[in-house]
């Protein structure tokens, strides 16, 4: 019988249990933040960072505050015995030896499942499933709070759910697919300034202005029809002639 070894083993199990606890907590936090970020269309990388930081901080804090009394609370008839044995491990007399035997006998059967709180674990599992399902829904539907915040007039508050489950259909009876290729319905942008990135270049279009484009000023290609926008003088791009129609459609529809 070696009480030092037994206590060290049970302490290791306590630390591992703490890690599992913190890991599950950070997973719940990470999933919750992921769901939120996805709903705003932001990269989920932030949730990984936040989850990781939460795990690290939580683990360090819980290890620092952990004590043998936590094990005593989980194991029946062990209260005060484990702490007494640990605090007096260097001493040797009949009474302490008997105590050490009792403690070794009881902690020998302590497993990680004894130390983990079942109720709390189930609660966290439930939250994980809940947030997982939420992420699945957001991913599948393409739900986005920013889209939802922009109403029919382009300025309205969040008043409806957009995306797969919005129930809206276009004239052809198809679900809305905000496709810029001109084949399907194009988004209505209202009076807002729109920044579009085409290739690696930035093209600023002020939709509030009307007027014909000057070919000389732009240095690019003229489009048929009238597009109420000014093209930046730095704009230049090359595209296949097959795609010309697509871009033309895009700008035409944009101008509607």
């Amino acid at each position, binding site marked *: 019988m070696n009480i030092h070894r037994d206590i060290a083993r049970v302490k290791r199990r306590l630390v591992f249990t703490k890690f599992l606890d913190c890991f599950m907590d950070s997973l719940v936090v990470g999933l919750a933040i992921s769901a939120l970020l996805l709903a705003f269309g932001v990269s989920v990388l932030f949730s990984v960072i936040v989850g990781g930081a939460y795990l690290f901080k939580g683990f360090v804090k819980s290890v620092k505050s952990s004590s043998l009394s936590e094990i005593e609370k989980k194991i029946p008839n062990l209260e005060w*015995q484990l*702490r007494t*044995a*640990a605090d*007096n491990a260097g001493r040797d007399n*009949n009474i302490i030896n008997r105590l050490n035997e009792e403690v070794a006998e009881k902690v020998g059967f302590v497993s990680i499942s004894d130390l983990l709180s079942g109720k709390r674990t189930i609660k966290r599992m439930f939250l994980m499933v809940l947030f997982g399902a939420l992420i699945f829904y957001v991913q599948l539907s393409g739900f986005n709070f920013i889209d939802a915040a922009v109403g029919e007039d382009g300025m309205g508050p969040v008043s409806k759910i957009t995306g797969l489950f919005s129930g809206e259909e276009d004239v052809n009876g198809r679900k809305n697919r905000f496709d810029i290729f001109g084949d399907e319905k194009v988004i209505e942008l209202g009076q807002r300034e729109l920044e579009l990135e085409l290739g690696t270049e930035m093209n600023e279009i002020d939709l509030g202005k009307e007027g014909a484009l000057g070919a000389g000023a732009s240095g690019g290609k003229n489009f048929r029809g009238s597009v109420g926008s000014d093209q930046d003088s730095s704009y230049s791009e090359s595209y296949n002639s097959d795609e010309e129609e697509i871009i033309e459609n895009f700008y035409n529809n944009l101008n509607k």
Partner: protein
Amino acid sequence: MQQEIKSAQDVKNTIDEIMNHVGFVVVGQEEVLKQVVTSVLCGSNALLEGYPGLAKTLVVNTLAKVMDLNFSRIQGTPDLMPSDITGTYVLKEKNGSRDFIFEKGPIFSNIVLMDEINRATPKTQSALLEAMQEKQVTVGNQVFKMDSPFFVLATQNPIEQEGTYPLPEAQSDRFLFKIKTKYPQHHEEMEIVNRFTEEERSPEVLKPLINGKTLIGMQQMVRQVPVANDIKQYVVDLIQKTRKHKELIEYGASPRASIGLLMAGKAKALMEGRSFVTKEDINEMSLPVLRHRIILNFEAERNNFNEDDVIKYLLK
């Protein structure tokens, strides 16, 4: 007679047997008896406070009998002199020459019952101080060691305070416990009436269960009981609280109280067959250990709080 006591369980069995034997003579008063035994196991002194006729003397006398210890009784009176307790030099003739020989007083015994200690004068009370704390008596320029085990169990009456000399704080601090004896319950009193009117039951009918050597062994075991650091911390915190709560307590307990409380907790654990001390042991022992060591202020007395009320408040 059980002599081999090696484990906490052995101590528990022995104490249970002692309790049963004492219970043959004394009806009820289990709590008092338990606290007296705890005090004996700690090798400390106890002060029993209660009304007359509550078997205080009988408890101590019976305990001495079952532990096979020398027992002496001193009745506290205003004219009791220190030499009446400690003994004195008397002129004796031996082989034709006369010499002053020290004649030991009743203090030289294993268990000394000092009945109505508060009726003795402060001078006589203080004669007990050295014996209680140092386990020795100084007479003239000679020091006499007491026999081991040695403890004083004193009694005092809470009523009839006229002509008494309340124990000074320095002396009451020497008592590990102040044990309060209560009136028996109805069924206990019925049993007392039946038992003592039908047959004579005196401690003399009892046989010794242990002896002084076994008791000393058990006292050493009490010191060996390990204590968790959290419990030590708890004890010190509690004693410190008695000094900080000035709104109720004028004078708090001394560090001797910390030692006494921890020792009492150890003894209680051992008596229950445990080799570790719990917070409940400390809480239970804090009342008899602290009640004579704190002095309440006017505010507490005005609110009709007694020492036990204040200790319970500190334990919350």
